């Protein structure tokens, strides 16, 4: 067992535990924090996969921005006491869990069976890291269009959020 | 061109009324009547221009490509069968407009527009030679009819109209599938004239079409919408419904089911004929116990249309011709009956038989007209009903492709018809005059004008049906050749009275059959 495997198991386990915690903690704040843990572990996995840039962005965007936003809203709405109410019945829960387990088994099955696949079996030939430089270059040449579209998406989000939460001047008066 | 004019002139009327709505009620009525009459007059040109020596479709002009991408064209034309139905339609429409002169209380323009639009739809159905076009007209005619019943109908009009539309839609849904299936077997074309069998899955296709038509006819188990629709429809709606709409079912059978899928028709005859006979008897029995005049007439339609279907499935010239003739007859006499019921309803605001009695004293003209129409409906010799029913029964009995037992039962239906009709007549016209009915006025001039043409044709067909039969002979013959296994059976000689010769041929045929069997 080499270092990479150890680290994979470590990060993988952490991310799984985090993920399970997300859905099992009662309190949204704890869920959110568990999600942060998962994201961190995933950033670790990305580094293992040689995707340093993605790992950094993962932390900056997910942990640094998205989850803070979540925390912010949870705190703003002070959801602590409210969330306990109206939990769903055990039947639905059981169903969901069974469904989930089935999905998971299927996923594992698919993943294991894909080993025969030539594209997948090409495995481990490629290692090494992708530099930010490479990604930057790709973004502005091959992936120019998606990049521009992403900017539009952000514009849409910007406009949308302003529409949804900005206090109107009439209301103030 | 002529035919297109006939079809679309009423639609022009619809637009004209829509635009000139502001001119007032009399103007609307005037426009509607004028359009109806002009259409009728022009359609008479179809009669004179029709060449009875050939069974091909005529007068339609060259087909115009409509939707090139789907092989759909605007292809119309008439043959000896549709000619009469077209004429019946153009004839009944002005009659209806006149009959509705004073009875429409609200939305007169809408009423007239619906009526004229309906005419276009019906004419289109009878003239279409393209399956798509046919289906378009078939479906679009539903909408005006829907409004006619739904807006100007009686108490339970909404129930009735929705039932009517849903039944028809359900049927036409299947027909649509059938049409599409035919399309692919017809070299990606919807042209009816190029359709020639045998088709794959012809049994299923036959059923798809037949169910749609059977609902429209209506054949026995599919008939339940009819009494509701008739009872709730305004008088004019009933007239059109009984006079023309029901014929679209039988027309469809003779135009599609029989010639396109002869094998399947053969196969299902043992199933359909009993249904037709059940319809005859059942309709008659139910009519007998109806307390409501309109319902009685409605059930009598079920019975009469049973005859028509019986005749169609006899698959011989006499039966088929009788059927076609009976379609016209039924249109005339049942239409007239509905008109009369409507007239009396306008006066008395009741259709219950018990509310009447002794009317003949107060309303002699009405009674006379009623008598003639009733007798026509029963099938009294000398009036139109007799010719049709006789030919049907004769054809089915002598040459029918099914057991004669059915014909015996069907004949019982004729007797039953006499029973319920005459009984009804007696209860309404004779006996003591109720006090409330003492002041009922007799028919006025307009109403007489409405009824006279109907009576004229009732008598004409009864006395001298030859011009009618002549025109349809070739076309019916063509259907018969297509539907009959043995080609020798189909031929008809020009102008020969139908009766005896046919009988002889039939017996010859039977002989040969028996010989074949003994061998």
């Amino acid at each position: 067992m080499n270092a990479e495997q150890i680290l994979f198991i470590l990060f993988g386990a952490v991310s799984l535990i985090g993920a399970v915690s997300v859905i099992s903690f009662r309190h949204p704040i704890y869920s959110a924090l568990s999600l942060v843990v998962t994201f961190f572990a995933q950033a670790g996995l990305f580094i293992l996969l040689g995707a340093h840039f993605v790992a950094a962005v993962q932390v900056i965007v997910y942990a640094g921005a998205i989850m803070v936003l979540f925390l912010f809203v949870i705190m703003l709405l002070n959801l602590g006491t409210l969330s306990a109410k109206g939990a769903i019945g055990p039947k639905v829960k059981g169903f969901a869990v069974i469904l989930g387990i089935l999905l998971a088994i299927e996923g594992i099955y698919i993943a294991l069976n894909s080993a025969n696949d030539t594209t997948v079996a090409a495995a481990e030939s490629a290692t090494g890291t992708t530099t930010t430089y490479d990604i930057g270059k790709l973004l502005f040449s091959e992936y120019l269009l998606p990049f521009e579209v992403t900017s539009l998406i952000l514009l849409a989000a910007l406009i949308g959020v302003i529409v949804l939460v900005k206090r109107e001047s009439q209301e103030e008066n | 061109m002529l035919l297109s004019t006939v079809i679309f002139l009423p639609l022009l009327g619809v637009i004209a009324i829509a635009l000139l709505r502001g001119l007032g009620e009399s103007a609307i009525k005037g426009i509607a009547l004028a359009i109806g009459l002009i259409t009728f007059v022009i359609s008479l040109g179809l009669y004179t221009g029709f060449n009875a020596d050939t069974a091909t479709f005529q007068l339609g002009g060259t087909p115009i490509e409509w939707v090139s991408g789907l092989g759909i064209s605007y292809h119309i034309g008439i043959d000896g069968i549709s000619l009469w139905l077209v004429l019946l339609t153009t004839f009944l429409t002005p009659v209806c407009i006149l009959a509705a002169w004073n009875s429409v209380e609200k939305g007169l323009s809408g009423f007239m527009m619906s009526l004229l639009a309906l005419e276009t739809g019906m004419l289109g159905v009878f003239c279409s030679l393209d399956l798509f076009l046919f289906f378009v007209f078939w479906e679009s005619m539903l909408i005006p009819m829907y409004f006619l019943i739904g807006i100007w109908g009686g108490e339970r009009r909404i129930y009735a109209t929705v039932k009517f539309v849903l039944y028809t839609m359900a049927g036409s849904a299947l027909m649509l599938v059938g049409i599409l299936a035919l399309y692919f077997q017809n070299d990606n074309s919807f042209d009816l004239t190029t359709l020639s069998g045998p088709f794959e899955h012809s049994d299923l296709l036959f059923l798809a079409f037949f169910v749609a038509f059977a609902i429209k006819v209506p054949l026995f188990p599919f008939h339940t919408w009819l009494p509701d629709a008739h009872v709730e429809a305004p008088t004019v709606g009933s007239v059109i419904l009984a006079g023309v709409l029901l014929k679209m079912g039988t027309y469809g059978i003779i135009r599609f089911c029989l010639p396109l899928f002869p094998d399947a028709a053969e196969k299902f005859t043992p199933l359909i004929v009993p249904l037709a006979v059940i319809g005859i008897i059942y309709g008659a029995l139910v009519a007998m116990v109806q307390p409501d005049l309109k319902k009685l007439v409605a059930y009598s339609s079920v019975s009469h249309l049973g005859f028509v279907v019986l005749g169609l499935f006899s698959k011989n010239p006499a039966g088929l011709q009788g059927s076609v003739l009976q379609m016209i007859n039924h249109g005339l006499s049942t239409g007239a009956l509905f008109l009369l019921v409507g007239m009396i309803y306008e006066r008395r605001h009741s259709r219950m038989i018990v509310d009447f009695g002794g009317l003949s004293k107060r309303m002699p003209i009405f009674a006379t007209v009623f008598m003639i129409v009733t007798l026509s409906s029963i099938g009294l010799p000398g009036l139109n009903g007799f010719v049709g029913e006789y030919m049907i029964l004769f054809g089915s009995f002598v040459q029918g492709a099914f057991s004669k037992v059915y014909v015996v039962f069907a004949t019982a239906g004729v007797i039953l018809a006499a029973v319920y009709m005459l009984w009804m007549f007696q209860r309404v016209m004779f006996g003591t005059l109720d006090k409330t009915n003492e002041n009922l006025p007799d028919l006025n001039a307009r109403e007489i004008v409405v009824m006279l043409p109907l009576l004229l044709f009732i008598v004409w067909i009864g006395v001298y049906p030859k011009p009618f039969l002549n025109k349809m002979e070739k076309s019916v013959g063509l259907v018969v050749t297509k539907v009959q296994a043995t080609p020798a059976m189909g031929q008809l000689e020009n102008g020969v009275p139908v009766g005896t010769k046919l009988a002889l041929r039939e017996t010859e045929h039977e002989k040969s059959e028996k010989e074949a069997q003994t061998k």
Partner: protein
Amino acid sequence: MENLPLFFILSSIVKIVIIVHLLLIGVMLMIWAERRVSGWMQDRLGPNRVGPQGLLQPIADGLKFMFKEDIIPDHVDKPLYVLAPAMLLVPALITAAVVPFGSSIELFGETINLQIADINIGILYILAITSLGVYGVVLGAWASNNKYSLLGGLRSSAQMISYELTLGLGIIGILMLTSSLSLRTIATEQGAYPWQWNFLIHFPAFLAFTTAMFAETNRLPFDLAEAEQELVAGYHTEYSSMKFAMFFMAEYMNMIVGSAVTVTLFLGGWHFFGLENVGGPVWSGLISFAIFFVKTAIFLFGFIWVRWTLPRFRYDQLMNFGWKFLLPIALTSIVVTGTLWIMTGSRLVVGIGNAVSAFIVVSIVAGMLVMTTPKPAIQESDSRFSPTALDAVE
């Protein structure tokens, strides 16, 4: 990863130990300095009893914190309450890992960079880790279960997210010219002389970055999260003893690391008129480290200076400032830098262009703000201070 040279591991461990200790010592010095400088600015003495010039005062404070009773209030959310200070301190510490504190020294025949790890995404690493700092504040605030704390937390999270943007954007101009994310490369690329340093070329970005840095470290004039007058110390109201000390340390550590990063990015790192190259391989390294240290210290002095110069922002002013001034400046700087760099390839032109464009942007924004802001109807109050004057005092 398996066959790392032993020397590398050893030297790394040594570097880590040294830097961590340096930071901790730096924190203590900073606390002392802050108090002394504050005193000096306010024309008073500041701590001067413990040790020479009061130099040992931080240690005394530290001891006091350590031996104080560790109170955990009943109403708090315990796990998070305990976690929060650590969440603030740890990011502050590990950010230092990628900062180059000097050029390099040669020892035992090996070259040792004066930097714990020179990773190729150095700046992103810093941004990533800095962005985590907010969790400490937010969680501490929330876990305290106290509305003032919560308000502080909310303010802080909004503020940090807003200014992080400027922080990130401010760097991009530099990245465009150096085409590397490695801090060491960026530091080396800047020449020996001040006019070759980035702060001149990217002057607007430098200002924006520095300002954002102030906001990120929750220093005045951006200390709304803990504004004593409004929030009773904000997010750390409920904290005491060592936990409070950790918050305190984290803040100073952030300042130190932030200054170090700014020095690296904008102020030429360890370069100073070629002085860093004087002496042998060992000495030059140490000299470069000293230069770096001095630069950082000067910058840190700036923090204290600003603290006693500028009044605290009101919350909406803070947001307006971040979004309507800093962000446009940073964005313009990116556009101008990119365009001029591609067109001319001359740092001089880029520098001039940046300065001019920033001036224009500021003028436009200020003009628009003046035009669009509705004049508040000033109410006659009983107070002898006018409301506007009150704002200024605050």
